[in-house]
């Protein structure tokens, strides 16, 4: 038995174990944010998947879509499946992640995410859309979910003094992933394209390999702090803020508390409003300021929103360390209500500058909502199962991902069908979004500390 045991101990997978990544004394905690960024920058590529949409509809025709080519509606499902599996894997993988540790989760995330690219490349070669749904959609989506939640609880444990800033830094990477992934994909497709190929399959292979190496760098540099570790010179405040707990709540118990559902609602309303207008940003600015904004300028506007989304994640979540999570979420909702209502006004007075500024602030708060939520969960439910609880809360994102675009698109179409000019077709949508944020504000204001009956007792019940 001993040799078998030794084999197991010396196997490759042993280096992924949680016990192997406990940091030695003197370890610099600032090595953890870049490790987390390696994962989030890679998986954030999902936001840029739309750059593949048109080339995927020309695989056979190359220069124009042939009759046998995939339709845009079929290709659009790849992204939707990936987002749905992100939510599912984050919800179900969270508990496993807490037991297995961040390195194992990051490694499997890298295998799934890059594996998704490789399977999709085969799918393009044999021209089977099912392989793309399975590859990038299902397997890649599982990699997205595991990767998204894997560094969160580790960062919170390393930065008990500034959890908002730490998680904001990592989740900022997810927002920035599109800024890297989009031009990279365009560059690679241009390089690999020829008279007989759009270059998509080779681009998938190259990106799969690149992202795998990038994510491994993150996985092999992540460490967890020893039990009871505290930063030098830091003593936890003797009197905590009202909402901040020093107790822990088990992940299975957390979903039985009203606080979980209020946070779920708050996140869902914030993301629904943001994601709804994000998807329509390019079309909206061209229709509201017809003749004044060209498609090229609109793509610049979308780029600006990506940057605002990315920087907002760091800025707002860092600010939450000083202002408190409940206060910062109230700012998102109140300022959001004002700005969504104001956007219609910018159309009436035909002010592009005010439109761009309002939209940029809205997108920064959309990103801020994502980045602040892990620290908010840590405040309410403690640090023990924050990764798992965060994973379950991300189902709000999956719901919002469907609800937001559907609301914006259908209401706009309904108004146009009833004779409303395109430039004014967004007025009601904006007021509905403001209404959603009002619901979110109510959810946020109702959040109170968790009842002590839900607190985790070691050796006792959950």
């Amino acid at each position, binding site marked *: 038995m001993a040799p078998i045991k030794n084999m197991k101990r010396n196997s490759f997978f042993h280096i992924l174990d949680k016990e192997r990544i406990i940091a030695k004394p003197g370890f610099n905690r600032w090595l953890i944010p*870049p490790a987390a960024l390696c994962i989030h920058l890679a998986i954030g590529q999902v936001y840029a998947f739309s750059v593949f949409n048109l080339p995927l509809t020309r695989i056979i025709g190359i220069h124009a879509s042939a009759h046998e080519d995939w339709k845009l509606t079929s290709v659009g499902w790849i992204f939707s499946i990936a987002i749905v599996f992100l939510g599912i894997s984050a919800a179900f993988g969270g508990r496993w992640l807490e037991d297995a540790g961040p390195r194992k989760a990051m490694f499997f995330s890298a295998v799934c995410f890059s594996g998704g690219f490789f399977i999709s490349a085969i799918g393009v070669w044999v021209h089977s859309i099912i392989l793309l749904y399975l590859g990038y959609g299902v397997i890649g989506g599982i990699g997205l979910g595991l990767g998204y939640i894997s560094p969160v609880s580790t960062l919170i444990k390393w930065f008990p003094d500034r959890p908002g800033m730490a998680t904001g830094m990592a989740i900022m990477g997810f927002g920035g992933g599109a800024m890297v992934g989009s*031009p990279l994909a365009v560059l690679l497709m241009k390089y690999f394209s020829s008279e007989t190929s759009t270059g998509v399959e080779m681009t998938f292979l190259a990106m799969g390999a690149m992202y795998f190496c990038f994510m491994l760098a993150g996985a092999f*540099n992540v460490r967890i702090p020893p039990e009871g570790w505290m930063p030098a010179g830091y003593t936890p405040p003797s009197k905590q803020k009202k909402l901040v707990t020093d107790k822990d709540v088990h992940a299975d118990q957390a979903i039985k508390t009203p606080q979980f559902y209020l946070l779920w609602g708050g996140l869902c309303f914030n993301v629904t409003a943001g994601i709804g207008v994000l998807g329509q940003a390019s079309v909206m600015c061209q229709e509201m300021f017809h003749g004044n*904004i060209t498609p090229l300028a609109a793509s610049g506007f979308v*780029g600006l929103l990506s940057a605002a989304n990315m920087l907002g994640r760091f800025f707002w979540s860092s600010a939450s360390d000083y202002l408190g999570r409940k206060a910062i979420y109230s700012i998102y909702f109140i300022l959001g209500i004002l700005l969504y209502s104001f956007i219609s006004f910018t159309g009436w007075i035909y002010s592009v500058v005010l439109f761009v500024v309002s939209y940029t602030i809205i997108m920064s708060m959309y990103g801020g909502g994502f980045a602040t939520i892990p620290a908010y969960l840590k405040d309410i439910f403690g640090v023990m199962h924050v990764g798992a609880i965060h994973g379950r809360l991300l189902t709000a994102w999956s719901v919002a991902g469907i609800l937001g675009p559907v609301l914006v698109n259908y209401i706009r179409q309904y108004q146009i069908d009833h004779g409303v000019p395109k430039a004014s077709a967004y007025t009601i949508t904006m007021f509905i979004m403001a209404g959603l944020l009002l619901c979110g504000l109510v959810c946020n204001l109702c959040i109170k500390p968790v009842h002590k009956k839900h607190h985790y007792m070691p050796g006792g019940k959950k």
Partner: protein
Amino acid sequence: MFYKCWIDIKNILSLLASFFALHRQEKHVRQIFFIKDNVKLILLWGFVGIPIVWGFLQTFQKVLGLFEHEM
């Protein structure tokens, strides 16, 4: 192999520090020791920083297009 490279980098930095110490350039010695102590930190932040800066520059070019053409 990676571990050996790592040790080599640290040895080269130690040699450099000794060189400056020999020439009584304390400021440079301190700088070299700072780099040696934080070389992993600098490399890792550089590793993630390069794609972020590249992505920002690409986006910035697009944003300039918005203002150049329309404002």
